[in-house]
């Protein structure tokens, strides 16, 4: 008697350990297939619960059918002997057993294969049929069944796998409703299925339902995440498309300006050459030739600017660190900065980056910095960046001579220049480029105090 109690305690202890291990294992995964493997393996593991065979069926409410999803166990005596003798030789722990990859074996064994093919139409079953009752009454059924009883109380689709034995049928729940049935039996070895085993199985079935629901939710969330990702990448490519279109229209605008602005120096140079040909006065020839040379240089400048103008190169948008590119540009001005005693302050965080074509961003910042340097002698250039109302604001501020108030509205117009050298294209190009990214340019300037040019980029991502 004492021994029996001790044995019982040991058994209970073991079963608790089993329940713990199985629920722990299925909580760690969101993979439905893996959950089913663990459950079915747990139910049928020798030395665990020790049922002979177990299967999971899913219930399709809309079609009112039950279909076999997965089964584990032998099909007949011969297979039973083979499986169990092989397993007993291996002597593996429960955890190892639960993590065992079954797929290969399940694909060749007859019981799992048969289960997968079962489809039961509940409309065709009589009211006493246990499959129908589990779904309807949401109860556990445990009974011994012979062939005759089986033909009355079990669906005919089960017949091929049925062996007279104790059978357990349990409902499988999600938080909302019944989602299927777990079926298990003690065929071949006929170890009785006692009360504590039943309790254990029902606890496992509850865990299974929850785990399956979690897995399903996880999959739904994953799918939604995928959809969101697709949507996001579609939006990104749409945005790129828009930038491209904007760029094409900018190209058209720029090309028209460039082409016709070439005509001006060309006509002037031509006019002076004609005068040279007609003139006999050496000094006026000299002067006219000098003008021709200047006009030709202007032509060269326009053409260089145009071919450097990267609107015509293929689009390659990349993520660029703002601080890096600013430093790169400042390096090219090192000599000039020290010659003119100009101090540069940078207030840009290393992690600020933006998506743009590098050459274009370079062109934009190069123009702003070069303008600032040209307009001052001793002083400070402040380059900063910050996020303002979901726009990235980059500003270049100098303490130079500033722009006369009446000129401010014209500085971004093409070919506006107060410099003797230069084409007056710098800010025009900058504002067109910034606009092609959906951004804008602002200029604040006070004569003799300095100029602050701010550019705003919309933040992609």
């Amino acid at each position, binding site marked *: 008697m004492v021994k029996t109690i001790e044995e019982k305690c040991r058994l209970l202890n073991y079963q608790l350990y089993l329940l713990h291990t199985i629920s722990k294992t299925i909580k760690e995964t969101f993979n439905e297939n893996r959950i089913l493997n663990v459950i079915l393996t747990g139910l049928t593991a020798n030395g665990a619960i020790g049922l002979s065979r177990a299967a999971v069926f899913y219930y399709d409410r809309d079609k009112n059918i039950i279909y076999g999803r997965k089964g584990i166990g032998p099909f007949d005596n011969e297979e039973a002997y083979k499986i169990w003798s092989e397993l007993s030789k291996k002597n593996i722990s429960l955890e190892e057993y639960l993590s065992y990859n079954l797929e290969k074996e399940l694909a060749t064994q007859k019981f799992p294969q048969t289960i997968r093919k079962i489809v039961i139409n509940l409309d065709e079953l009589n009211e006493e049929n246990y499959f129908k009752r589990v779904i309807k009454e949401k109860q556990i059924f445990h009974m011994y069944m012979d062939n005759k009883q089986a033909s009355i109380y079990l669906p005919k689709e089960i017949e091929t796998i049925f062996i007279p034995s104790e059978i357990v049928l349990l409902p499988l729940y999600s938080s909302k409703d019944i989602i299927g049935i777990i079926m298990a039996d003690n065929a071949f070895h006929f170890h009785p299925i006692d009360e504590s085993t039943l309790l254990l199985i029902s606890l496992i079935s509850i865990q299974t339902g929850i785990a399956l629901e979690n897995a399903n939710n996880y999959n739904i969330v994953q799918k939604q995440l995928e959809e969101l990702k697709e949507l996001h990448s579609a939006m990104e490519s749409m945005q790129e498309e828009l930038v491209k279109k904007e760029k094409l229209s900018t190209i058209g605008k720029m090309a*028209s300006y460039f082409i*016709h*602005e070439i*005509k*001006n120096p*060309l*006509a*002037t*140079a*031509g*006019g*002076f*050459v*004609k*005068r040279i040909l007609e003139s006999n006065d050496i000094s006026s020839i000299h002067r006219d030739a000098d*003008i021709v040379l*200047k*006009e030709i240089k202007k032509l060269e400048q326009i053409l260089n600017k145009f071919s450097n103008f990267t609107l015509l190169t293929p689009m390659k948008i990349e993520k660029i660190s703002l601080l890096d590119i600013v430093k790169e540009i400042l390096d090219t001005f090192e000599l000039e900065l020290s010659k003119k005693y100009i101090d540069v302050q940078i207030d840009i965080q290393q992690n600020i980056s933006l998506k743009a074509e590098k050459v274009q961003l370079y062109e934009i910042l190069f123009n702003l910095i070069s303008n600032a340097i040209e307009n001052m002698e001793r002083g400070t250039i402040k380059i900063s960046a910050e996020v303002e109302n979901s726009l990235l604001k980059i500003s270049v501020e100098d303490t130079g001579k500033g722009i006369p108030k*009446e000129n401010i509205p*014209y500085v971004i*117009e093409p*070919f*506006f220049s107060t410099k003797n050298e230069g084409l007056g294209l710098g800010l025009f190009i900058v504002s067109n480029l910034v606009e092609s990214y959906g951004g804008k340019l602002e200029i604040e300037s006070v004569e003799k105090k300095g100029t602050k040019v701010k550019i705003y980029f919309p933040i992609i991502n």
Partner: protein
Amino acid sequence: MIKKKILIVEDVINEQILYKEELEKEGFEVSCVSNGIEAIEFVEKNLCDLVILDLHMPKMDGIETLGKLLTKKRNLPIVIYTAYPQYREQFLTWAADAYLIKNSDIDLLKNKVKDILSEK
């Protein structure tokens, strides 16, 4: 004979020099300004028989200048001289007596100016 007076409105200095000297060779008295605002000021204060007008200029573009000049002096002959052919389509430029595209052959401009002034 009194020399006819021509005003050149052109922001590029070398072009001013070229047109001025070439037209002076033809016996005209030539003055130059660099933008529309100066042009309007000039015709208000000085006698002027014809204006040669560039279209792309800072401060006030040629088309706006054209309108303002004609408001001041309704019968003032104006020759638009530009690198841009597309403004020919703009009806505002139709008020000018001629629309010439800049060319290295200055004779085209000279002949047009002579034609217009001899008609008057």
